[in-house]
């Protein structure tokens, strides 16, 4: 094998083996590979689970510099879906989400603390029902890599919880149901032409 060929092969191997540089990702809502789920106790007897079907967002992630992680998500509150039309209608109403007045909820991150092993804490500001408060999401990375269709993806899951009253919901549903848990399963596709490049 010629030395040029060896060098080229080495270059390819290096290019293949390392993680990608810091990249911007678009959350893959087009392919519905992202989910925002809420859960709250019903009467203290069971968990009630629902989703927000429509949202969009992006994040920046760099494996080598995790503190630079940034996330922004905007949720269409009207898309709440707990598999029950009449309940969803009530949830959209003034008593709960008041979607007529507040059609969007939003999370914008401010900092990320890496805890190692793919886990971290994402601080940010969460706006719901027109009220903005700090919120921390416990994050853990699921994985990242190339996909079969020419893209590069990274995925995370995150959990957080907050009190309904903290965001202007005055209705007290009882002691078991004052807090809502949010679970997010997010996959993003790298944007901005950062696709894997083959060496010739």
């Amino acid at each position: 094998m010629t030395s040029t060929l060896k060098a080229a092969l080495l270059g390819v191997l290096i290019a293949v083996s390392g993680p990608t540089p810091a990249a911007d990702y678009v959350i893959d809502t087009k392919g519905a590979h992202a989910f925002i789920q809420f859960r709250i106790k019903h009467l203290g007897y069971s968990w009630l689970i629902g989703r927000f079907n429509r949202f969009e967002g992006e994040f920046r992630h760099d494996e080598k510099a995790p503190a630079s992680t940034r996330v922004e998500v905007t949720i269409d509150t009207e898309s709440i879906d707990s598999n029950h039309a009449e309940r969803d209608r009530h949830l959209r109403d003034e008593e709960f989400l008041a979607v007529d007045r507040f059609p969007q909820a939003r999370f914008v991150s401010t900092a990320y603390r890496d805890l190692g092993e793919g886990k971290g804490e994402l601080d940010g500001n969460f706006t719901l029902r027109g009220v903005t408060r700090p919120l921390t999401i416990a994050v853990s990375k699921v994985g990242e890599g190339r996909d079969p269709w020419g893209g590069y993806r990274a995925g995370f899951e995150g959990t957080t919880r907050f009190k309904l009253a903290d965001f202007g919901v005055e209705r007290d549903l009882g002691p078991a149901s004052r807090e809502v848990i949010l679970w997010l399963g997010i996959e993003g596709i790298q944007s901005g032409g950062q696709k894997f490049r083959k060496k010739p």
Partner: protein
Amino acid sequence: MWSNSTDSYGWLQIILHWSTAVLVLGLIALGLYMTGLDYYDPWYHRAPEVHRAIGILTGLLVALRLVARAAQTTPRSLACSAGQRRAAGIVHGLLYALPVAMVITGYLTSTADGRAVDVFGWFEVPATLHGIPGQEDIAGDIHFALAMLLLGVIALHLAAAWHHQFMMRDDTLRRMLRPLTPSPQPDHEERP
């Protein structure tokens, strides 16, 4: 006398008229009451169950009324003018059309997630058109708006009936309370 004549309503139409009136007014009242209930009120789930079931049954009743009306003579109009006759036609038309529209919008609200409407456990009306984003909200809002419109039309209807019966003294209300003394009926058997 079960069927209508040119001067009088028959018992069939009279019974259908008043039972529809009671059901429609009852449904509107129940609808307004139940949407004001707190989630933890004992009737929060039960009231809408009753409302949905009676709504479906009322829809069937209105369908029956439409068939009965089509199959019989409509007693002559007691209107004093062409304008009054037209107004009566519009109001009466709305009194048929609005309850039908309310059954449809109510049904679309409750079946938006694909669930069937249960009628007192006797039978179910399955969902057909469902899954449209915001379906329960759009259909539900229209359902409420139509209810308010219907209330207004009913008020007009009552005022007009009162005016005709007690001001014009022309039997308008009386002929919807019982069949009036038989007027010459086209009766083929008696024809010599």
